[in-house]
């Protein structure tokens, strides 16, 4: 369906009704087939492993902001579906979103979420509060519940800079749309168990932005070390994790050279101690 009336070329009445500033709600009324969660699978069918899955995401807060990072691998069963997939995105000026689970649906959800935030901002002339953004995302995840039950789960991780409190905040989700605020750090995806162990030992409250990025890369390395679905830094091809910071200055994705230098240093250090930095015993 074209987005304007094919016969007259004018905006259909629905476009001019002032009822909602939510893009998702409008699209649901206007052209519901465009919403990712609305295309259900036939009853009784479960999607197999052949659909690419995104894997590990980590987020670490530090005084003044938050860092989010994701590995670059997508897997379909035992096959590496993609080596350089990107799973961490700018949501708007002061927030970032990353996805784990079914890659196709996840990337669509991210796109929709980005438009949702911008649409609200343009219509209302103000940005949503960080809780408002986190709640909108919860609704989107919940709309995907049917597909999640059929094996196509998407779980996002949301992080942003709270301008009112002047600090970084992290929100995690479950496939039913439950929204949980995380303190300090969090990880999602298949390698998250290993990444979280690593984060637990490496996190401290006074990290700088650069050190928080280093902690993320270390945790992703540890996840890749033990989880076959998580990709480590690929020095031969020059493929490194996507790392982004969100601070009072806004969202910033670290350049390839910046992340490359951090990743190379991490790999270099692991030649001497494959387990990575050790935490003091007492």
């Amino acid at each position, binding site marked *: 369906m074209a*987005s*304007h009336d094919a016969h007259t070329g004018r905006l259909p009445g629905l476009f001019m009704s002032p009822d909602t500033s939510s893009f998702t709600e409008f699209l649901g009324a206007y052209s519901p087939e465009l919403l990712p969660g609305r295309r259900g699978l036939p009853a009784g069918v479960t999607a197999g492993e052949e659909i690419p899955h995104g894997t590990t995401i980590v987020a670490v807060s530090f005084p003044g902001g938050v860092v989010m990072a994701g590995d670059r691998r997508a897997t379909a069963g035992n096959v590496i579906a993609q080596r350089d997939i990107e799973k961490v995105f700018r949501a708007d000026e002061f927030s970032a979103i990353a996805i784990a689970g079914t890659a196709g649906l996840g990337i669509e959800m991210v796109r929709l979420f980005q438009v949702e935030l911008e649409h609200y901002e343009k219509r209302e002339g103000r940005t949503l509060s960080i809780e408002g953004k986190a709640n909108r995302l919860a609704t989107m995840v919940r709309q995907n519940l049917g597909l999640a039950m059929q094996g196509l789960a998407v779980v996002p991780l949301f992080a942003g800079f709270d301008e009112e409190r002047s600090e970084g905040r992290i929100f995690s989700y479950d496939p039913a749309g439950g929204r949980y605020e995380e303190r300090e750090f969090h990880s999602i995806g298949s390698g998250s168990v290993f990444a979280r162990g690593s984060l637990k030992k490496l996190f401290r409250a006074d990290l700088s932005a650069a050190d928080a990025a280093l902690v993320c890369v270390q945790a992703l390395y540890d996840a890749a070390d033990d989880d076959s679905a998580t990709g480590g830094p690929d020095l031969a091809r020059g493929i490194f994790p996507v790392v982004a910071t969100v601070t009072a200055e806004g969202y910033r994705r670290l350049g390839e050279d910046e992340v490359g230098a951090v990743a190379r240093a991490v790999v270099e250090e692991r030649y001497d101690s494959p387990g990575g930095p050790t935490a003091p015993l007492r």
Partner: protein
Amino acid sequence: MPFYVSPEQQMKDKADYARKGIARGRSVVVLQFADGILFVADNPSRALHKISEIYDRIAFAAVGKYNEFENLRLGGVRYADVNGYQYDRRDVTARGLANVYAQSLGTIFTETNKPYEVELVVAEVGEDADTDQIYRLTFDGSVADEHGYVAMGGQADAVAAALKDRYREGASLADALRTAVSSLEAQDADRRLEARSLEVAVLDRNREHRLFRRLPAARIEELLGEQAS
């Protein structure tokens, strides 16, 4: 019921009605400058905007009845976001938007008793001044493709005449803003406009992603205070 009214008379009455409504408001100017497109409105309100962002490279300016052009603006934002989501961000164009606005305004003008009392500009900033696009739409759905500058609103003719004398291509932001403000002051003989009573925004081609930016009063004051270069 009235006697027979000829279609000519009917259209003329509606057009007069719309023109009168628009002429009651204050003016807005849109002009090209070195880094993009500048929008300046004689509008003291901080909340009720006459200039707004539509999409990455596209902005909207309007004069006339607030609820009517606000309705069009909100519809335009939906149109742009639906197309950008469905296709790609690059596929949202000012030309497409101007077309649907023209069709909507044309239909409202011919099919309803009360025409919209609005005049709009839809502008898209390009890679350089030659690829900038400025479309002006009137209450009856007519579209004009403009170059350089546009004035609309209450005393549009006086403002346009002032702009004609003062406008020059490739001006800096400060120069273009001064040109716009002094032209808006031509609305009345004794009109003086201060930063606080102006709504100013730019589509700046040197920015990234979303090119629309509002200028806060402090910045407007600073630019107006700069010496002419």
